């Protein structure tokens, strides 16, 4: 998160990466596990990188520069800041200009399917964004410095064809109410009503859902409104989110597809997950917005919660 705000916002870094490099972004969790050409390439680079002497179980997060065939040119931890990152980039470019030999990769053999995550065929993808709408002075920490609570959290929610079709009412009777089907409701509650503003959140266990009522109301032919309340908290109440939900869905009956799926969650969160410390003090407002995804490359990034694919796709169990 900090890299987005402090490193990749610098004009010279943007210019160099856009013109002198091929920039790639990837999730280490998958890359370090993949038994295929992608994983082999990354391990080749990592074994030459700034953490080459560390155990292979330790983190390799950071910024790396390398040739197409895996010759390391430079690397640095992602927490070192913009000046150090720029110095590494310039150093790598100098090395590249001394020796620009590289070989193109062969066509990849089959990818490691255990770690392949593709949006479900015929499914629905929603972009999700989260925000803590407080002024910097109320976020905790030094008001003179960037605060990670100022970030916008991002994720994606995947629904299969069967799941989005289960949202359709049996008849479009105005005022009719139907409960959100459990498969969709539990995925929403457990994996997407989370405070991911500061990074990777802990997801909710089923037992941590204290209260949930999510209903779709038929507003008109093809128009649905989502209404809901959800309360999640850990057993010791150290972390939680009391949320209201309101959303609008439009279904094009002629095209047999949703053309709108805008949902807003609001309420108060508290506490932090294992990787999301430095939360604001006390109970703080947390807003989460959902909308239909577009066709950008970033819109195909898998949901954070789908690392354990079976658990994500079967959230109600």
């Amino acid at each position, binding site marked *: 998160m900090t890299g987005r705000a402090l490193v990749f916002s610098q004009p010279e870094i943007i210019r160099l990466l856009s013109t002198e490099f091929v920039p790639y972004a990837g999730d280490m969790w998958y890359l370090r596990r993949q038994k295929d050409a992608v994983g082999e390439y990354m391990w080749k680079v990592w074994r030459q990188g700034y953490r080459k002497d560390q155990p292979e179980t330790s983190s390799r997060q950071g910024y790396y520069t390398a040739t197409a065939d895996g010759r390391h040119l430079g690397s640095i931890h992602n927490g070192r800041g913009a000046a150090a990152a720029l110095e590494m980039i310039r150093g790598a470019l100098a090395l590249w200009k001394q020796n620009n030999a590289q070989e193109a990769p062969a066509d990849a053999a089959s990818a490691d399917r255990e770690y392949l995550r593709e949006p479900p065929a015929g499914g629905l993808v929603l972009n999700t964004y989260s925000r803590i709408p407080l002024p910097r002075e109320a976020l905790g920490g030094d*008001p003179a410095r960037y605060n990670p609570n100022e970030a916008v959290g991002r994720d994606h929610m995947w629904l299969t064809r069967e799941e989005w079709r289960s949202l359709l009412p049996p008849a479009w009777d105005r005022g009719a109410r139907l409960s959100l089907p459990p498969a969709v409701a539990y995925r929403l509650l457990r994996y997407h009503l989370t405070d991911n503003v500061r990074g990777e959140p802990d997801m909710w266990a089923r037992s941590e859902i204290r209260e949930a009522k999510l209903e779709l109301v038929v507003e008109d032919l093809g128009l649905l409104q989502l209404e809901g309340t959800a309360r999640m908290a850990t057993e010791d109440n150290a972390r939680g989110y009391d949320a209201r939900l309101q959303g609008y869905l439009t279904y094009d009956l002629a095209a047999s597809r949703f053309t709108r799926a805008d949902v807003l969650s609001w309420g108060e969160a508290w506490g932090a997950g294992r990787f999301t410390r430095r939360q604001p003090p006390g109970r703080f407002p947390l*807003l989460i917005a959902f909308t239909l995804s577009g066709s950008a490359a970033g819109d195909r990034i898998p949901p*954070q919660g789908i690392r354990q694919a079976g658990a994500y796709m079967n959230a109600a169990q």
Partner: protein
Amino acid sequence: MRQRSLSPALLAAALLTLLGAAGAADLNGAPVPSFETASLPADRWSKLHAGVFPPAEKWTEIPWETDLIAARKRAAREGKPLFLWIMDGHPLGCT
């Protein structure tokens, strides 16, 4: 008279108290509701929903590749090295 300055923590606590009393902050020109607010009128809902979306962010101007094999092929084709942004959690998603 002796002057006393507020520490950042005290300042934050005081501001949160004030925000709580006033019904919290605004977002995109709409008051941020608390959990006690069960539903929102359409115009307030629209402002808040739009307000959560990220503004135009500089880092998104960089043409990030998400397919490493394709990125390596492109690097070889264009005679450039790769820059690899690797995070635990996808840098373009949740990290």
